[in-house]
């Protein structure tokens, strides 16, 4: 059996606690990954366009996008991604602390692939990571 390939994940989130949790949950779930982290929407877009300091950045398999970001909001990043020809086919998961229905509706209206509320508790977090993994590699278990 060929070794599972490493997932390139771009995490756009400004909360160190949530970033660490994501990292640990991926590890616990046994999902091989390279986790790239940026704290602002602007840096996220630069990464995706391989601009400036991110010239050598790989194309991510999935973008985990928080909604509450310092300057540009998550929604504005989402629109920017969906309207750029080089970025519009990326898999974007809105991964936010918000459980509001209107945020979910807005995310799908802006063509996010998935909307997930950040769960509480390791088990739930691991399940969330597995769900995201299944989104990208349906054959993965």
């Amino acid at each position: 059996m060929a070794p599972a390939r490493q997932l390139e994940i771009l995490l756009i989130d400004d909360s160190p606690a949530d970033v660490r949790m994501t990292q640990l949950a991926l590890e616990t779930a046994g999902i091989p990954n390279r986790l790239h982290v940026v704290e602002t929407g602007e840096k996220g877009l630069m990464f995706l366009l391989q601009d400036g300091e991110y010239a050598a950045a790989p194309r991510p398999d999935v973008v985990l996008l928080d909604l509450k970001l310092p300057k540009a909001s998550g929604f504005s990043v989402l629109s920017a991604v969906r309207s750029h020809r080089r970025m519009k086919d990326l898999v974007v998961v809105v991964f936010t602390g918000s459980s509001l229905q209107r945020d979910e509706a807005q995310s799908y209206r802006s063509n996010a692939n998935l909307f997930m509320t950040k769960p509480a508790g390791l088990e739930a977090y691991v399940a969330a990571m597995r769900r995201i993994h299944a989104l990208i590699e349906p054959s993965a278990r």
Partner: protein
Amino acid sequence: MVRTPARAVTPPLRYAAATALIAALYFVAAKLALALAIPPGYATAVWPSSGIALAGLLLAGGRHWPGIWIGAALANFTIQYSLPVAAAIATGNTLEACIAAALVQRSLGVPHHFSRGEDVVRFVAIAMVACAVAATMASSALGAAGFIAWSDFLPHWWTWWQGDLAGIVIITPLVLGWTAKQEFAWSHERIFECAMFSLVLGAVLLAVFGADAAARATWALSFLLLPLIVWAAFRFSQREVTTASAALCGYAVWQTVGGNGPFVAHSVNISLLLLQAFLSTVVATGLVLSAVLEERRRAMERLQHAHDEMEHFVHVAAHDLQEPLRTVINFADLLDNRNRLRLGDEAREFLGYIVSGATRMQRMLRELLAFAQVERGELRTMRVDCENALAVAQENLKAVLDESGAVVTHDPLPAVSSDPTHMEILFQNLIANAVRFRGTAAPRIHVGAKLEGGYCVLSVTDNGIGIDPGDFEAIFNMFRRLHGSDRYPGTGIGLTICKRIVERHKGRIWLESRQDAGTTFHFTMPAA
């Protein structure tokens, strides 16, 4: 109510200009009024100059009183051609304006519009007092100089007093209203409505005053003008109300002088009396109504604002507080999970309490958020099929229902006039409670419906542990629970949300229950 600060030193040129303007306006208004005087007397139905004088002093400052004196003296001199009489009358009018201005400023500031009913009453009361001064001086001077007989003193005084009073009450709010900053939004609809209003007002005025005075039918028609003032008060700002009143009064005076309309009587005094009574009623109604409506509008705005702020606060608190809480839960969980071997039993026990406490808090916050969303959300009302709503609720509770082996049955359920999300929440919360507070047997839940009048009474019956009648009120309180959370989970806000939803749809919610004998919750919704 607008309070303007006392003016500082005015440069002499500005002072002279303002004073001259007041004098000129007073004179012109006086001549206009005299042209419309009912011959042969010197008293008129309305003396607009009084209104201009008071408005002028309120806007420019009490120091400009010489303008009034000059204008009044000149105007009256051109009637009687007697210097002492003109001087006396002028003094009376000046005193009237000064006293009124001083009293108004002390109690109301400069009222560009009246924002309370009692402010209108105060204003009229002050005017009544001030006009008495002018009426007394004028009637005395004219009597002493022989221009009127002493036997006519009282009727003359009364007419003078009424005329000045009408002038102040009609003209002063009008001038102040037009010199104020407008906050009223003029949309296309409003402009159209205003045009319509003007047309209707014009038509009614023509009808009332156009006919021959002998045609008694016009008497009844004059009452039509009151609803028109009410229309203006409800739909436009005070500025429009005072303008409509002034236009109405002006036209009424003009027509009555010309011998038209219902107020023309065989005696001049009777005519004046009738006309003034009519004018006072119309103007007073308009002002008071408009002020009271303004008061109500402000109160509702303040209330709405406070309500919105409260809502926003709850929303922000519930939403933003979840993030740090999530961090606590996550890392306590991680600590426990990744250090199983290194931590002792006690440490793991303590971590357990941390996680469960934080998790409960998170659930409470989420429910508080749900409650706030029920509160602040716009109320949608549409035809809702209760069977659909019930099916959705059952679907949402699938895991809980399967796990407890619950069986949910229902009568044929009607359609109601409500919000579909609200109906789903109602069914979901009541059924979740029924499952949660079950006895030893598997939960059996039945949803029934009855139509009573225009209302649908829905009921959710269970075979659970029941509720003591003494607790019937308490269970609807926020976060109030009757049992410990280890035995029966739940945050205690489910029923609070149900009650709030039912209340928002103007319904009632109540229950029947006995300890260990099951519970039935009833609630009403308007039938579709």
